[in-house]
């Protein structure tokens, strides 16, 4: 039987196992929306803005490991979804974004709601397709899912002109697909792995530095096994938090610009570094000329272009980190060799000395709510068992530092692109993927206003999110940089005329609570977390002057961290830049 392009698309999504489609309708997408109406396999979630739809699909993908799927209309629908597409691209998140396009005969005529979707999205997708013939539609959808979810994952855009969604053809969904121009590697080079294992076992001051690749490859259990087998210190990137249990004594914390003192010094002083599924991002390395001067570097990554891009690898290993970890563990076990216990003990003594600095200490006696305190209480109250999304800024760093993630896919944030407005819609996606789980969105008064409209979506679908708003009436991270590097000229970082967020939450049909005293923090959290039926918007009025420490300023190395004044750094030392 012949089906229309719209029916073929929806059927293909169903055959691909898509349960939720996050989107927003419009003229060019109307045939597709009609096809959605006439079936019940793919559930469409109506966001309030295409950006919200995109981030929701992203949150769904990050928390479940399944591709997030988005449907938007042409023109502004496409431009609005560019931010989520770029966000997913920077963090290698599998997504398929269907963009409706004006009818084929109008393409290029500056038609109503026409933009060059392929052109606009090209630099921020893994790949994109324009469907020119309805007979190619099903295979293109198959290819889109294949490309998005294999190799180094990423977003794939499929642009479908309206006439294609009306034309008819036989529906055949390919069972498998192969592309001569795209054959991602999986297995690593065995000779390289052997060299890596040798180097690793010979190390005196080793470190294992892992990133989001471990989470994408679903192999945190293997990472954990390797780290424990060797007894080496492990640090995670912002994207990799949860890949190794944060409460394990072998974990030295997050590294990088706002990483722990012990993680960054371990990186700086190490003689062998095993980098697994991370990409030496500038926020991780600081000044690359000062980066880990004594280290021999083993870099395992599925993307060859990540290797020796910013930091030269001594032993590059291209392949799936999952497969390579298996092989490394096997070879270590077979070799019967153990790391040099004496050297390792000396190394740990040094690391423990750095730990004693207690770089994440903060003022517990404050009369004003400290943002760190809220996150710590959130961790305690949820017993570490929540999914935590965040927006971007100080609150994001506080969440990364003070919430201990022991499992992968629990920490959902925009690491690469740093997209404010990500947190709330991403939390919606997480809740759809895990309907019974506790989902907290840690945000700030700046970020939350960037996708605030999604509170309405939360009401429509009864999503009992917990919004933890760290409200300091500032764009806190901007303010912090202005304090440190711009002589306290607080240019446009102050949020004047904030709305009454409690009333606003209530206006959307949710529960809003304003919390102004440290003594009320735990009670409010307990109230919100125990009620699984409603969304709670907790507006914590926090210390306006709190800064995120430790901090590596731009152009500095891991050994040139600035600690909190509580750790003995005085103000003068903060005059950097």
């Amino acid at each position, binding site marked *: 039987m012949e089906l229309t392009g719209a029916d073929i698309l929806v059927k293909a999504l169903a055959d691909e196992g898509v349960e939720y489609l996050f989107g927003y309708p419009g003229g060019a997408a109307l045939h597709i929306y009609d096809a959605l109406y006439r079936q019940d396999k793919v559930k469409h979630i109506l966001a309030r803005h295409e950006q919200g739809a995109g981030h929701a699909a992203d949150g769904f993908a990050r928390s479940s490991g399944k591709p997030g799927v988005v449907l938007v209309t042409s023109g502004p629908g496409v431009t609005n979804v560019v931010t989520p597409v770029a966000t997913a691209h920077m963090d290698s998140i599998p997504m398929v974004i269907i963009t409706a396009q004006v009818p084929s005969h109008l393409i290029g005529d500056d038609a109503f709601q026409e933009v060059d979707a392929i052109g606009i999205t090209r630099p921020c997708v893994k790949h994109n397709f324009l469907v020119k013939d309805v007979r190619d539609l099903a295979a293109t959808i198959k290819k889109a899912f294949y490309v998005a979810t294999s190799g180094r994952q990423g977003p794939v855009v499929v642009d479908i002109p309206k006439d294609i969604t009306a034309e008819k053809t036989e529906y055949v969904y390919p069972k498998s697909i192969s592309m*001569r121009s795209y054959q991602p590697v999986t297995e690593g080079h065995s000779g390289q792995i052997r060299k890596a294992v040798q180097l690793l076992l010979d190390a005196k001051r080793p470190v294992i530095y892992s990133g989001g690749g471990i989470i994408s490859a679903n192999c945190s259990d293997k990472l954990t096994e390797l780290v424990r087998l060797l007894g080496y210190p492990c640090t995670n990137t912002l994207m990799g938090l949860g890949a190794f249990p944060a409460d394990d004594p072998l974990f030295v914390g997050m590294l990088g610009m706002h990483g722990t003192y012990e993680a960054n010094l371990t990186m700086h002083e190490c003689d062998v570094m095993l980098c697994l599924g991370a990409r030496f991002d500038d926020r991780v390395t600081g000044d690359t000329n000062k980066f880990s001067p004594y280290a021999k570097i083993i870099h395992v990554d599925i993307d060859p272009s990540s290797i020796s891009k910013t930091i030269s690898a001594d032993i590059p290993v291209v392949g799936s980190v999952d497969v390579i970890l298996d092989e490394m563990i096997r070879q270590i076990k077979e070799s019967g060799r153990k790391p040099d216990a004496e050297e390792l003990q000396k190394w740990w003594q040094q690391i423990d000395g750095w730990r004693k600095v207690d770089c994440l200490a903060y003022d517990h006696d404050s009369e004003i709510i400290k943002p760190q305190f809220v996150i710590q209480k959130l961790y305690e109250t949820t017993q570490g068992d929540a999914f935590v999304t965040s927006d971007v800024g100080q609150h994001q760093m506080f969440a990364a530092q003070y919430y201990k993630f022991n499992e992968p896919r629990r920490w959902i944030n925009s690491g690469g692109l740093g997209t404010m407005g990500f947190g709330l819609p991403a939390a919606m996606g997480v809740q759809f993927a895990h309907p019974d789980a506790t989902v907290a969105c840690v945000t700030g008064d700046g970020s939350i206003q960037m996708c605030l409209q999604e509170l309405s979506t939360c009401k429509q679908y009864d999503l009992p999110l917990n919004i933890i708003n760290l409200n300091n009436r500032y764009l806190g991270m901007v303010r912090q940089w202005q304090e440190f590097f711009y002589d306290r000229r607080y240019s446009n970082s102050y949020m004047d005329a904030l709305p009454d967020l409690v009333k606003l939450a209530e206006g959307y049909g949710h529960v809003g609570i304003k919390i102004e005293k440290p003594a009320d923090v735990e009670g409010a959290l307990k109230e919100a977390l125990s009620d699984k039926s409603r969304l709670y918007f907790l507006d914590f009025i926090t210390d306006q002057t709190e800064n995120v420490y430790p901090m590596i300023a731009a152009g500095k190395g891991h050994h040139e961290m600035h600690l909190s004044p509580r750790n003995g750094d005085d103000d003068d030392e903060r005059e950097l830049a």
Partner: protein
Amino acid sequence: MRHIISILMENESGALSRVAGLFSARGYNIESLTVAPTEDASLSRLTLVTSGSDRVVEQITKQLNKLIDVVKLIDLVENEHIEREISLIKVRATGAGRDEISRLVEIFRGRIVDVTDTSFTIEMTGSCGKIDAFLKAVPNDSIIEVVRSGVLGIARGEKGLRL
């Protein structure tokens, strides 16, 4: 150092813009770029001349390989190869200058393909260096227009860049 990267890619609309976009987005430099379909109509052959440190060129080839439409590529300068460029050069040619230019064309083994009372159009094929040398040899004020194809290249020996 100068590199000649020869690429086989899917002959699809937009494929060229992926390559061009990659170069502009990552700040790589393109000295010349030529593209045309191959004997297999589903594939295009793209020849790109770029320059940069070894590290930059390594990144360029990795990033090109990462493009989904790119099937295969080689850097021709890594091995013995042949490179050619074709150019069409229109020059002012009057009086005694006409003979002088004809002689130059002969020396450089070019051909005069169009003649008017006041001008010649010359077809010149060879390496970039040869064309540069010819353009230097022609009196500068007599050049009316120069069109160069960009470099084409192929490896020496029996092996070919194909599927």
